[in-house]
């Protein structure tokens, strides 16, 4: 079946502009995670959705970052007034349910470059 998909695959934007990144999780997966990966680094947790519960936003680095999820489907990560330090690969993952016993399946990521 289809895996996690993300769009766009690459995004170049000017400093100060807003960007919207999209994630399509695997159908039936109730948990969805966003991570950020800076060049040559590991992944940094940003936000987590489980079903219709309120999202866990504890990893968002500033109030310029926000995310939404429609039910148990598509999620969008929005970065307002982008800064150069926002340049990174943004990865989305979904799992059947929340919990470390459930494997997270990652999308290919969106590479964001802020000029």
């Amino acid at each position, binding site marked *: 079946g289809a895996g996690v998909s993300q769009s766009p695959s690459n995004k170049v934007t000017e400093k100060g502009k807003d960007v919207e990144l999209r994630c399509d999780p695997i159908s039936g997966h109730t948990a969805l995670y966003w991570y950020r990966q800076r060049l040559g680094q590991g992944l940094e947790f940003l936000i987590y959705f489980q079903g219709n519960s309120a999202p866990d936003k504890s990893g968002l680095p500033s109030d310029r970052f926000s995310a939404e999820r429609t039910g148990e489907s598509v999620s969008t990560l929005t970065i307002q007034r982008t800064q150069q330090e926002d340049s990174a690969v943004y*990865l989305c993952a979904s799992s059947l349910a929340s919990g470390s*016993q459930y494997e*997270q399946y990652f999308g290919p990521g969106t590479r964001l470059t802020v000029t």
Partner: protein
Amino acid sequence: TQLLEQSPQFLSIQEGENLTVYCNSSSVFSSLQWYRQEPGEGPVLLVTVVTGGEVKKLKRLTFQFGDARKDSSLHITAAQPGDTGLYLCAGPIGSGNTGKLIFGQGTTLQVKP
């Protein structure tokens, strides 16, 4: 704050050599995971270790979880060019079993033919 430190950060070896990658923390983890990531792709889960002292094998890869559940290692026997990639260890963070993960900074492995 829970941290995972990986070493080495970079490793370049010849085909057929053995190698070990380490993942260390001062915190106890309920489990640790190892992922492999190739350029332009997301990480793919290789293994989860959950019991202190546990050893798991996946073909030429051997994973070990430390007795105190603060560290883990990945050993590759007779490395192949297809093993080239970024290896990441990860562990659960935060209260409750949410699945949120903290990752090490990764080990970039290059295996030359």
